[in-house]
């Protein structure tokens, strides 16, 4: 038996809401299957399972806001004998079916991205958890939501759940009645994200002795390669400079393990694979980092596909849990409308972050001749507990070398 717990999608996440279960008790799952969609400040993220087995029991209801690390489901592992006391393969009332009949859209706010409230039947899912308060019963989700919204649920004589239990739906109805509109915490999610970012950057600046290096890298070879590549290609195939820059960073890193890994419990663990964290700014504020797996093996065209797909999913939902957790180093790209350079803050437990400024034209001296060059400033912030400036400079030089020879990136 294994407990599935609310996953963490980054050091800046404290809780997540189960937006939707994708499995029911009795369902067989395989490693990599998506079991739930989790609503976080960063949008909807698909949670994967890491073992083969059978879902035995769901411990949390859709709509519940759950702390990272708390159990949300039980999984019977494939190689473990199932005991007779475990859930029947086909429970009489599968969780999902009940909620279908519930008027689940009734209290949904007008914002389509608002977390779904789908809990009309939460109390009978968890009858053993119902709290007897006086003579009234209330489900844990309802109690929590009431506390969040500062609603006195004791004013309710009876709820709409079994045996008059107060369920989340009742709380949402009360909330709606008191304000004329359901006010889900969605309204201040951007503030929540701000607070979460504040917590993680403060911790980083407090704990990590950063040092900073930066290098102007000439792009004319890379741009010429890119122009030739894009010539005559359809829109779908067209490549952005970022793909080349990300490839150069990913391909340089394996020779510099002291920048690719995690600093945990006072020890540094270098990682063999480069999972490049791509910092994506969200429209409407905030930031998320999604890992591009095995980035050192990608050629520029594959990198472009990944970037395209990932930005789309970051902004519209559907990133996977592994993308949120696995990044071994982060790249922060200010884009072609950004500033010339940036000194970034490391995202713990990582030990380095590379920032890309905007591409720009400058006078450039080669062989004592001044000419016009396109350049980008690549900055590195790294953890001095793990590496020294000398190694950082060599890493930036290696990235520079790769970009002067784009054919090395293929």
């Amino acid at each position, binding site marked *: 038996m294994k407990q599935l717990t609310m996953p963490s999608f980054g050091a800046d996440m404290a809780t997540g809401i189960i937006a939707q279960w994708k499995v029911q008790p009795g369902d067989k799952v395989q490693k990599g299957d998506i079991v739930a969609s989790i609503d976080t400040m960063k949008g909807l993220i698909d949670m994967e399972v890491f073992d083969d087995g059978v879902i035995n029991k769901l411990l949390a209801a859709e709509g519940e806001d759950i702390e990272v690390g708390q159990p949300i489901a039980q999984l019977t592992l494939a190689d473990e004998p199932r005991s007779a006391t475990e859930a029947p393969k086909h429970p009489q009332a599968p969780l999902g079916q009940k909620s279908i009949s519930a008027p689940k859209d009734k209290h949904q706010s007008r914002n389509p991205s608002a977390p779904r409230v789908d809990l009309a039947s939460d109390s009978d899912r968890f009858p053993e958890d119902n709290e007897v308060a006086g003579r009234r019963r209330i489900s844990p989700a309802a109690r929590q939501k009431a506390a969040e919204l500062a609603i006195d649920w004791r004013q309710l004589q009876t709820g709409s759940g079994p045996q008059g239990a107060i369920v989340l739906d009742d709380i949402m109805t009360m909330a709606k009645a008191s304000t004329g509109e359901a006010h889900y915490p969605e309204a201040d999610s951007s503030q929540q994200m701000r607070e979460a970012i504040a917590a993680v950057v403060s911790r980083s600046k407090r704990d990590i002795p950063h040092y900073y290096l930066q290098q102007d890298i000439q792009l004319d070879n890379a741009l010429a390669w890119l*122009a030739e590549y*894009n010539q005559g290609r*359809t*829109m*779908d195939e*067209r490549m*952005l*400079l*970022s793909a080349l820059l990300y490839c150069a960073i990913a391909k340089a890193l394996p020779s510099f393990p002291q920048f690719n890994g995690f600093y945990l419990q006072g020890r540094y663990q270098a990682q063999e694979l480069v999972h490049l964290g791509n910092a994506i*700014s969200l*429209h*409407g504020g905030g930031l998320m980092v999604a890992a591009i797996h095995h980035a050192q093996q990608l050629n520029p065209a594959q990198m472009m596909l990944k*970037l*395209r797909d990932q*930005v*789309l999913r970051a902004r519209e939902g559907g990133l996977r849990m592994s993308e949120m957790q696995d990044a071994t180093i982060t790249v922060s790209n200010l*884009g*072609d*409308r950004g500033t010339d350079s940036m000194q970034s803050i490391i995202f713990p437990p990582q030990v380095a972050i590379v920032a890309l400024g905007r591409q720009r034209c400058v006078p450039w001296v080669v062989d004592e001749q001044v000419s016009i060059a396109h350049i980008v400033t690549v900055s590195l912030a790294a953890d001095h507990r793990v590496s020294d400036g000398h190694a950082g400079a060599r890493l930036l030089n290696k990235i520079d070398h790769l970009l002067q020879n784009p054919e090395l990136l293929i």
Partner: protein
Amino acid sequence: MSTQDIKTSLCRLILQIAPEADIDSLDPRADMRDELDLDSMDFLRLLTSIDKEIQVNIPESDYGQVNSLQALTEYIAKHRPDVSDNTE
């Protein structure tokens, strides 16, 4: 298709990519990417959807000609044979 139709379609496509963009108060002659905070990936996605839905392929070498909503509209009008400019 009139230039007004093009503009309407463009606004719809922009909103698909940047749903929170305040397109009503966008100055049609202002730099669209700065005003709406579209990054290079957003802009590429916009051009991709223009190619798909309005059937105008804008080559990379012409990106400089399509900086504002007005310029983009005019560019499309020029490159679509069926545009009847009856709005001015």
